[in-house]
Every structure is written in C-alpha cells, then in structure tokens.
C-alpha cells in the first residue's frame, strides 16, 4: 500500500470511528468526562480552599509578628522609662559625689587656714565648678552699719561684675534672700516673682541658691551659687550640699578669728615684754654708770685721803722718834695707836683703790707661767708666823696634774694671802687649814678649807660684797675692812675664773676658785 492509500484509509477510518463512537461508546464516555470534570473542579476547589487557609494563616502569623513587635516596643518604652530614671539618679549621685569630694577637699584646706584672707583664698572658681555651679558669690557683713559686701565672686568678668554689684545693692536681693536668714532657692522661670527674675538676670543665672553663713550662730554673710545653663538648674540636694559648705566656712571663719585674736594678744604680750626688756636694759645702763661714778668717787677720795694720811703718819713717827723733844710713855703709847690706825687706814684705802682700779679695768693682769707648788709654798712661807702664833696646822695637797698655771702671780698670791689670813683669823686654836690644788680638762681648781667657826647661811650670799662682815663673835673681835673678799673676787673674775664658798657653822668654811687653762 502506497503512502497515499494509507493516508486515505486512515482518513476514512477516522470518519467512520466517531460515528461508531457516538453510537456505541458515547454514553459511556460522556459519563466518564463528566466525572473527570467534577474531579478537576473538586481539585480546583480544594486548591483554592487550601490557598485561602494558608493566606489566613500567614495573615495570622503576620499579625502575631506585628503584635510581637508592638509588645517589644511597649517593653522598649518601659526600658526607656527605667533607664531615664536610672540615668537621672546616676547623674544626681555623680554630682553629689563630685560635690562631696570637692567639699571634703575644701574642708581640709579651710580648717588649716589661720586667717580669713587665706581662708577665702582657698575658695576658688575650680572648687565652685566641682561643686556643680558655674557662678558663685560670697557676701559678708562689713563696716559699722553691717552692710553686705561682695567678698569674692567666681565666674564673672570685668564686664559682668557691675551687674553683680547692682544685684547686691538691689532691694530685691534683700527681699529674696538676706531678709529671711535661711536658705533660698530661686529659679528664673516665667511664673517666678519679679524680684527673682531681676536678680537672676543681673547675676546671669537661670537659677541660684543663697545660703546664710553663720558665725557664732549669727548670720554674717551669704553664699550664693547658681547656673546659667537651664539644664543645670539648682536642686534641693544642691542646697543641702551648700549648707554643709556654709557651715564649714562659718566654722573656719570662727576659728580663724579666734586664732587672729590669740595671735594678736600674743603679739601684744611680746611687744610688752620687749618694752620691759628695753626699760630694764636702760636701768641697767644707769646702774653701771652710777657704779662707775661710785668707783671714780672712791678712787678720787682715796687719793685725796692718802696724802694727808702720809703726813699724819710721818709727823707721828717724827714725834715718836723724840727728835722734837722727849715724849713720855703715855704720849708714846697714843702716838703708837695713831701709827697703827694710820696703817689700817692706809691698807683700807689701798684695797679700795685696788678694787676701783680692777673694776674700771685700769689694772691689767700680767699673766706669767708659774709652778703651782712654788706659788703655794711661797704663800705658806709668808703666813707661817701667823700659823705658829695661833697653833694651827697647814696641809698642802697638790694633785700631780696641777703643775703649772698662767696668771698674774702677785695678784694670785694676794688671793691666797687673803683667803689664808681669813682662815687663820676665824679658826680657833688647834684647828687645821687645808690648801688643795687640782686640775681637770677646763682648768684648775683651788680650795682653801678651814675648821673654823663657819658662816651662817644668811651671810653666805653677801660674803663677797664690799664692806660686808659676817655677823659672828670672832668677826667682832677681829679687825678687818670688809674689802678683802671683794678684792679676791674681782681678781679671780679678772682672770676669767669663778669663786664660791661653802660653809657650815662651827664646822668650817671652804673657799674654792677656778682658773681657766688658757690663763
């Protein structure tokens, strides 16, 4: 079969088949198609329904999500609110800590300040800033009418200071702060009183606190601090901090004033002492001058006395020698007394002259080296007869290291003779006298000790005074001028030595003196 025939066959079959299909299979097929259509429709419906449910679910989920977000935002609002509160507390706390720290620092400085100027010097702009304020003024009562004056101002310059002065003299300030005598907080808000507006404007602040400064429980000044920035409005807790500061300043001023008073009275006392010292020095000078006058007088009088005395003695001797004719025994005896008393008087005058000369420095010591042993032996030889007369024993002890001194030999001999003569005079028969010489690193020491009548404790201090004579039986019996020990003291002092005496009544007396090594 050709291709053409095959196509024709196919076509004719296709034409027959539908007729056959309609006749026999059609009802069957129709049922099946209807079924299929229903299935498709059902599937479509099913799909549509499930899509709708899904959309609804998504919408629900979206809603849930949105709700979640909204809840989250509500939480956020809570967090923000808590955080704001926390931050406010934290800021307040920080400010308080900074303020307290500044206060502590200032307090330490203030308690150490001893005068009010220094005290106010410690309150600086930095401290005011640390306390949390931009501006500060210290008002203090001043003068007789107790007006408030500006003691210190911080945070102002030459341009703004006149405004501050204007504020301080304004009656509005008085109405607002100083009249009350208590802490005042002023805020420059629209609803604030006209006085508050005016003062705040002059002080260039949006709010300020004024705290009284109490000195001895009386209002003596005000501390005013404030801030210009509106976000740093002063608060109640600032006022509390400031009250503490005001108390400290008040106490410090109290202290400083007390100290100033104390210091002033101390200074007055010192000035008075100095004045008295000056007066005393002047009186002393006067005494020295008078003493010199006395010495000059004694010296002049002695010279004047010596000349006629020599004549008296001379003439008495001539008369006694019998050259001018015989003299009977009674006359001779009287002449002998004249001679003896003249001798005493001469000795007295010589001693007086020596004292005056040594005192005025007219006699110069002529130091010379001499062996201690030689010196003492020489003196012992001189007084041997007197010792013998009274039956007294003399003992000499010279320490090995007391070998040689440098001194005016004749004057030191005079010292020894005077001390030994006194010892002999006041030691009863059978007594003993000891002369001792010793040495240490600074100088030599000599002691003249006796076993005599001794000197009463009342008389001891006066012993070296001129014309003093101890008040005892022996001294009344013994002759003496009362110048010997005075002369001895002057000689020792002229040698830069010291002399002193120790004595016990009826036991004995020891005179001791030192001579320095350098001579």
């Amino acid at each position, binding site marked *: 079969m050709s291709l053409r025939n095959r196509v024709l066959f196919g076509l004719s079959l296709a034409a027959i088949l539908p007729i056959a299909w309609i006749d026999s299979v059609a009802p069957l097929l129709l049922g099946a198609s209807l079924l299929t259509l229903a299935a498709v429709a059902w599937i479509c419906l099913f799909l549509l329904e499930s899509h709708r449910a899904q959309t609804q679910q998504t919408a629900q989920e979206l809603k849930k999500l949105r709700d979640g*977000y*909204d809840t*989250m*935002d509500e*939480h*956020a*609002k809570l*967090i*923000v609110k808590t*955080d*704001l509160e926390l*931050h406010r507390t*934290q*800021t307040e706390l*920080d400010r308080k*800590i*900074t303020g307290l720290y500044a206060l502590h620092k200032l307090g330490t400085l203030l308690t150490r300040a001893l005068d009010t100027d220094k005290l106010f010097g410690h309150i600086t702009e930095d401290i005011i800033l640390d306390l949390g304020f931009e501006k500060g003024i210290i008002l203090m009562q001043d003068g007789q009418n107790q007006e408030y004056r500006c003691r210190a101002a911080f945070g102002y310059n030459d341009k703004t200071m006149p405004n501050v002065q204007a504020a301080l003299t304004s009656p509005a300030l008085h109405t607002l702060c100083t009249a009350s005598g208590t802490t005042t907080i002023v805020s420059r808000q629209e609803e604030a009183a006209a006085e508050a507006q005016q003062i705040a404007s002059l002080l260039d602040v949006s709010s300020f606190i004024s705290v009284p400064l109490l000195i001895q429980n009386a209002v003596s000044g005000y501390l005013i601090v404030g801030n210009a*920035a*509106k*976000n740093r409005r002063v608060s109640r807790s600032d006022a509390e901090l400031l009250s503490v500061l005001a108390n400290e300043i008040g106490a410090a001023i109290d202290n400083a004033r007390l100290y100033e008073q104390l210091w002033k009275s101390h200074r007055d006392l010192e000035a008075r002492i100095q004045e008295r010292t000056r007066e005393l020095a002047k009186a002393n000078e006067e005494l020295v001058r008078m003493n010199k006058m006395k010495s000059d007088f004694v010296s002049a009088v002695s010279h004047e006395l010596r000349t006629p005395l020599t004549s008296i003695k001379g003439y008495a001797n001539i008369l006694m020698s019998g050259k001018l004719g015989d003299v009977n025994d009674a006359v001779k005896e009287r002449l002998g007394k004249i001679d003896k008393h003249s001798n005493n008087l001469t000795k007295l005058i010589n001693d007086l002259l020596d004292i005056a000369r040594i005192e005025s420095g007219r006699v110069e010591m002529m130091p010379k080296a001499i062996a201690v042993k030689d010196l003492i032996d020489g003196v012992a030889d001189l007084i041997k007869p007197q010792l013998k007369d009274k039956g007294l024993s003399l003992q000499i002890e010279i320490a090995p290291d007391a070998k040689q001194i440098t001194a005016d030999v004749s004057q030191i001999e005079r010292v020894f003779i005077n001390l030994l003569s006194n010892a002999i005079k006041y030691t009863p028969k059978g007594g003993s006298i000891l002369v001792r010489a010793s040495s240490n690193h600074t100088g030599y020491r000599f002691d003249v000790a006796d076993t005599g009548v001794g000197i009463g404790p009342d008389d001891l201090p006066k012993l070296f005074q001129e014309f003093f004579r101890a008040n005892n039986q022996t001294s009344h019996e013994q002759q003496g001028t009362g110048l010997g020990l005075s002369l001895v003291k002057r000689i020792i002092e002229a040698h830069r030595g010291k002399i002193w005496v120790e004595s016990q009544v009826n036991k004995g007396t020891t005179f001791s003196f030192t001579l320095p090594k350098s001579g």
Partner: protein
Amino acid sequence: MLRGIQEILGTGFPIAGGSAGDDLAFTKTYQFYNDKILTDSTVGALFGGSIAIGIGAKQGWKPLGKPRTITGARSNAIATIDNQPAVSMYESYFGTDMRDLEPGGIGRLTTRYPVGIAWHLPKNYLVRTALRILDDGSLLCNAESPEGSEIHLMMATQNTIIEAAREAAQEAKEQLGAAKTLCAIVLESVGRQQLLGLKAADALHNIQEIIGMDTPLAGFYTYGEQFPLHHHAEESVCFQNQSIVVILLGEP
C-alpha cells in the same frame, strides 16, 4: 564636606576627626586655627611621612524596640519614619510632645537615646543624634540617612560603651601591626561622657590597657565623629555620633 575632602585626598586616604561642641548648650561652637578663633569652620591637619596609622571607631549602642523604616529624608534631615513625621518616633517612646522641650532639649535627649541606621546588617548601626526638630517634625542630624534604611531607637549602658572604647583601641592597634605605638589621639563623643559620668575615666583606662600605660594620649569630647569605613576593599569616610575614635600614630 567629607566627600569633598576625600575627592582631593583620594579614597584610599584615611580621614578621622571630631566635631566641636559647646558643653551641651547647642547654640554655637568655636574652632582654633593657629592664632585665630573661628566658628562654623573645619580645621584639619594632614599627617604625612614615615608614620604608621591605626584608626579604630566603635559605638557600643544597642537597638531597642521594633525596627522602623525611613520613608522620607532630605539632606541631613530625617523627614518621616513609617510615613509619620520622624519626631513621632521619640514621642511614642517618651510620651511627651518633643516640640515643648527647651532649646537644646532634643539634642540632650537624643544624646542619651540616639537613632541607629542599620548598615551592613546584622551587626552594624550608624548612630545619629538630632540637633533640632524642624517645623514639619523632621529630625535634623549632622549627617544624611538614606531613605529606605531600617532605623531604631538606640540605647547603651555604661558597660557597653566602656567596652566599645577597648574594641576601638584594639581595632586601631591591629591596624598598626608590628609598628611601635608613639601616641594616641582619642575623639570621644560628649554623649558618652554624659552617660558615663564619674566612670568616664574607665573608658580611657581601657584604651590605655591596650596601647600601653606610658603611651601619650590626648583628645577631646566631640559632637560627632568622622572615621574611615572599610567596605568592599574601598575606604569611605563615615560620620556618626556617640562613638569613640582611637587614632594611633606609630613608628613603622
């Protein structure tokens, strides 16, 4: 302005800096330039020669509440958020009419609660504070915020921002590599100082622990920080508020 500087210096040149402040009064700022005192100006110093530089910038703020979208922005102002005037976002959180605030009030508030613009999610946010509320309720910031960006209210704790100081120092130190650290310049937002209070020194202490206690350190509190952002191998200069920038100069 930053783009202008970058056009002249080239995109590979790192730029960092800080905006002058006025102790939170939000009225006027001043700049020193040699012997002059300027206002509304930019003063710059160019570092050149044989030095190594490391710059780290971190902020430490966390997003709070639901994400919103910037639906309108003009230049430096965020006009609408979720089709509402931008300020209404703050009003919804703080419950007060922001237009009643004193001058500078919104500045101080947004210093504590800035906005964060999502940037290379999931982790990065650029922080912005608002200077002023414009009449139509837009928030005027120091820098632009692209329309369509996700925006959040941001919050921080003392710990998160103290930690940010350490991270910034670490980032800068890593950039220096083996170079010896000579000195550090720290530009820290005044907002951080506000939040930290007496703990402000802790942040500096954290930096010193990284760079060495003896390394000289200087800087100032800023109203905004400029820093380089590395992105797709390109360096662009970025602006944000409330952050800390640590610039380390080293000897290579």
